[in-house]
């Protein structure tokens, strides 16, 4: 019986190979158009175990979709003289504009804190690069505020059972990106996790960009601000005049 087991494991041992991930995404480019209200991305793929044999204890999968990082200032309101106003602020040099993590089991059951921090798995482990010089408790307060705000806006998402693994080899996860996401290059990372270790990882890129008329408007506002401003002045003049003429003729 031992021999049989050894024989079965032979290709695995010989190749000394570790499992591989073959990831894919339902679309490589997300185009923001006039009717854009958000998009659902399907992150899916296959787990290739060496020799095509699934171990008795199948590994877990975690996928992370991360948007471009931006430097931001987070402001905190306090009640001063009866009025709620911005009283304190803190800078973060690299806050991702979008972050979603989905896994087949809760992250804290999959890896220890150190591994989670290395791979930025989970919202608590984002590397936000806070500006220096602040008290640790202040920094934590602002970090919590930022995470909480973006979570409620749907920009930061944690889905502890968002990855579905079928037949132990095919995985898939649905991630929804809302309409207010920043444009830029998103990275989709897939991690294969076994016994607290990341045994395989793969990355794909997705571009999120405004397209068509929306792109034209956003670009003109940025590059040709004078012409854009002229258009913004002429538009109301023209529409106002047209409406006035229309009603005058009708009234007369």
């Amino acid at each position, binding site marked *: 019986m031992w021999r049989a087991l050894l024989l079965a494991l032979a290709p695995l041992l010989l190749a000394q190979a570790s499992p591989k991930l073959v990831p894919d995404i339902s679309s490589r480019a997300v185009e923001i158009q006039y*009717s854009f209200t958000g998009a659902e991305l399907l992150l899916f793929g296959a787990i290739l175990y060496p020799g095509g044999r699934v171990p008795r204890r199948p590994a877990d999968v975690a996928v992370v979709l991360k948007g471009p990082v931006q430097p931001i*200032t987070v402001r905190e309101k306090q009640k001063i003289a009866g009025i*709620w106003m911005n009283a304190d602020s803190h800078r973060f040099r690299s806050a991702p504009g979008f972050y979603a993590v989905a896994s087949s089991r809760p992250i804290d059951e999959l890896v220890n804190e150190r591994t989670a921090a290395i791979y930025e798995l989970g919202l608590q482990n984002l590397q936000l690069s806070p500006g220096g010089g602040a008290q640790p408790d202040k920094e934590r307060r602002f970090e919590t*505020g930022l995470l909480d705000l973006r979570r409620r806006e749907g920009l930061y998402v944690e889905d502890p059972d968002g990855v579905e693994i079928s037949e132990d080899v095919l995985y898939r996860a649905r991630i929804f990106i809302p309409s207010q996401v920043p444009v830029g290059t998103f990275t989709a990372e897939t991690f294969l996790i076994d016994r607290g270790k990341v045994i395989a990882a793969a990355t794909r890129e997705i571009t999120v960009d405004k397209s068509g008329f929306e792109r034209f408007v956003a670009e003109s506002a940025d590059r040709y601000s004078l012409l854009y401003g002229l258009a913004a002045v002429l538009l109301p*003049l023209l529409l106002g*005049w047209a409406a006035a003429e*229309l009603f005058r003729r009708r009234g007369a």
Partner: protein
Amino acid sequence: MDIYLPIAGMSVNAPLIVALGLLVGILSGMFGVGGGFLTTPLLIFYGIPPSVAVASATTQITGSSVSGVLAHMRRGGVDLRMGAVMVAGGLLGSLAGAGLFRLLQASGQIDTVIGLMYVLLLGSIGVLMLRDAALALGWMQPAENASPRPRHNRWIASLPLRSRFYASGLYLSPIAPLALGFIAGILTVLLGIGGGFILVPAMIYLFGMAARVVVGTSLVMILAVSAATTMIHALTTEAVDLVLAALLLVGGVIGAQYGAQLTTRLKPDLLRLSLAVIIILVALRMAFGLTYRPDEIFSIEYL
């Protein structure tokens, strides 16, 4: 039907924004005000970023004042000389306002300042208008010792360089309309309001201008300054959203025409009373927003 706004970076319900434009347009046509004091707060309540709301609402002020200017021009109800002085002040004011806007934005106090100024301005003007309307409708007795107002304000009459404004029937220092235009220019940039409800009372009560040219001249001033402000926003804050502006304008310009038709059928005192009530309601809502614990303690600003 949702439409994505390229500058605001979010999608909004298009028919709702058009309806908002229509509503504000009707009110602006009825009362002869730009309507910015309603558009801007309503857009902010909807969730549009305040800077985009302020910058895009100014286009609606331009749009709804066009037909008014045309009508008053035809009737000769515009003092062009006075208008030119006020527009000059307004342009200076909008430049100063843009600088102030930047400063406040950098210090993070822009939202609080916008809120406070709305509460103070709308609150005081609303209460004054309410009192006026109540007096006119006979709900309130005028105070016993109400002495007739002097036609000219003492302070303004003492300003140097007085010159003649024939159409307004005034012998007045141009510094006064210049300063008034300057203040209205600042308000247009900061608050996204045309300032009509400050201009008109100031021109009547402080300057003693001939009533025939007051509304037309203030509209010319509002048109020029709101157009200039839109341009300044496009060049500095880059927060003018053309798609949002177009949605607002489609409703706004049509609403303004219907509003103007409605005016002829309603009692002017009732009109003023309802405008006063609307202004006070907006002020109260703003005051509530400032003093009540906000939904979001934290806010994010992109660098």
